[in-house]
C-alpha cells in the first residue's frame, strides 16, 4: 500500500443503537484532496470521528499507509500526523489564542513551532492581533480561525477538515479555501474535506464522494460531479 494512503473499508458505526454509517468504502491517495459532501445528518462528521479514533467502529477497518489505525487510541492516531479539525470552531475557551495554537504545536520543537506560528498568523492576521485574548471571548468566526490554526500548527500528514468555512465572512472563506489549496500543493499532504458548500469543495478537490443516509451515493472526479445533472439537482438545488 502506498505511503500516506488512507483506506476505509466497510466501515459501520453509530451512536448507541442508532446506526449512522452503513458500510463506507473510501480512499484518499497521497497528496490528494478528497471532498465529502452531502445533506445534514448523512454521517460525514461521524466518518471523521471514526478515522480519528473518537468513535469506535462496529464493523470494518481503517488503514493509514501500512498501519491499521482503527482500534488505536486517538492519541496514537494524532502522533501519526492524522489531524481532525472538528466542526463548530471547537477551541479551549479559557486559554488565550496563542495557547490554543501552542496545543496544536505541542509535539514539535521551538523552531518548528515558530514556522507554524508564522504560517497561521500570516493566514489569519486577526489572530495575531488577538493572540493574548481568551478564545472563549472571540466571535464565532474568529473561533473557527483558531480551530483551523490549531490544526495547521500540528503539521498534518493527513488533514481532515469538518466544515472549515462555517460561520466565516466571504472574504475569509475565500482565503481559507485558497490556503487549503496552497497547503495541499506546498506541504504535500492528503486532505479529506467535509463541506456544506459543495460547489467550493468540489472546485478544490481532486475527487469527491457524496454521502447520503450513511451510504456513499456517488463518487467521481470532482469536475465530472460538477457537471452531473442528477448531483446538481439533488444536492445543490440547481
Amino acid at each position: 500500500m502506498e505511503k500516506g494512503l488512507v483506506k476505509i473499508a466497510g466501515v459501520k458505526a453509530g451512536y448507541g443503537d442508532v446506526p449512522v454509517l452503513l458500510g463506507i468504502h473510501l480512499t484518499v491517495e497521497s497528496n490528494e484532496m478528497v471532498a465529502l459532501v452531502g445533506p445534514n445528518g448523512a454521517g460525514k462528521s461521524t466518518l471523521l470521528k471514526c478515522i480519528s479514533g473518537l468513535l469506535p467502529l462496529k464493523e470494518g477497518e481503517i488503514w493509514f499507509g501500512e498501519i491499521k489505525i482503527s482500534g488505536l487510541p486517538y492519541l496514537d492516531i494524532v502522533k501519526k500526523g492524522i489531524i481532525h479539525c472538528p466542526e463548530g470552531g471547537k477551541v479551549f475557551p479559557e486559554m488565550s489564542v496563542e495557547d490554543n495554537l501552542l496545543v496544536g504545536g505541542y509535539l514539535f520543537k521551538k523552531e518548528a513551532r515558530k514556522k507554524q506560528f508564522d504560517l497561521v498568523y500570516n493566514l489569519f492576521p486577526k489572530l495575531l492581533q488577538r493572540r493574548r485574548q481568551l478564545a472563549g471571548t472571540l466571535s464565532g468566526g474568529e473561533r473557527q480561525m483558531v480551530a483551523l490554526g490549531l490544526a495547521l500548527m500540528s503539521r498534518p500528514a493527513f488533514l481532515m477538515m469538518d466544515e472549515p468555512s462555517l460561520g466565516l465572512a466571504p472574504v475569509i472563506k475565500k482565503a481559507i479555501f485558497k490556503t487549503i489549496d496552497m497547503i495541499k500543493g506546498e506541504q504535500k499532504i492528503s486532505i479529506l474535506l467535509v463541506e456544506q458548500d459543495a460547489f467550493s469543495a468540489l472546485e478544490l478537490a481532486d475527487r469527491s464522494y457524496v454521502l447520503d443516509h450513511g451510504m456513499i451515493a456517488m463518487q467521481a472526479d470532482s469536475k465530472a460531479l460538477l457537471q452531473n445533472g442528477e448531483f446538481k439537482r439533488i444536492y445543490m438545488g440547481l
Partner: protein
Amino acid sequence: MRENNIKKTLLAARGLAKHFGGLAAIEDIHMEVEKGSMIGIIGPNGSGKTTLFNVMTGYLKATRGEVFYEGEKISGMRPFAIVNKGIARTFQVPQCCKQLTIRENIHLACIHRCPKNIIEEKTREFARIAKIESSLDTLATNVPIGYLRKTELAMALATNPQLILLDEPFSGLTDLECYELAAIIKGVREKITLVVIDHKLKHLMPIVEKVFVLNEGRLFFEGSPEEVARNPEIQRIYIGGEIK
C-alpha cells in the same frame, strides 16, 4: 420613556455601545428597523453583529446608548420581558434543549403564550410552517443542524412575535437546505418583521430589502443589497470580490 418621532419604526438603536474590558465590540450604533421590513446585517467576523443582537434582546447590558421597541425603551429589561414585548430571536449555535424532543422544545416556547389545551395544536401549526413535522418525536440531539435551525424558528414563532432576529440561519446548511429555509423565512415575513445576520450572501441578499454593514463594531454602511454588492470598500473588507 417614549419616543414618538417616527411612527413606523419598530426597533431603534440610539448610540448603542458594548465594551468588554478595553474592547469595544460595538460602538455608537444608530439603527432603525421599520415595521414590516426585512433587514440583513452583514460584516466581517468579530464586527459586532451577534453582540448587537445580544444587547438588543437583553442578553448583554449596553455600556452606552438605548434600544427602543415601538417607541418604548427596552434596554435594561431582562430577556424574558423583551420576549414578552414581541421580540424573538435565534442563535448562531442553536440553543434547543438537546435531551427533549422537537415537540417538547416547541411546547416550551408555547407554554406562556397559549392555553394548555391548544399547545399541541399550535405546536403542530408551527412545525408545519417550519417543515419539521416529521421529526416532532425525535430528540433534538439526534437531528441534523438544519432541523435545529428550523426548530428554533418554530420556537421563535411560538412566542407570537412581531419581530424575529435570526442569527446566521443559513450557517451549516447545504445550498438545497438554504433554499428551503429561505422559502420558509419568506413565508413568515408576511406577518413578521425580520432582521437576519448571515454570511451566505447568495441566500441572504435575495430575501432582504435593506442591509446594514458593520465593521469593527461600527455601522459602516446601510443601503439596498445592490448598493452593498457594488460598494468597492465592502467588497474589499468583507465580500472579497463579487458575490457568487
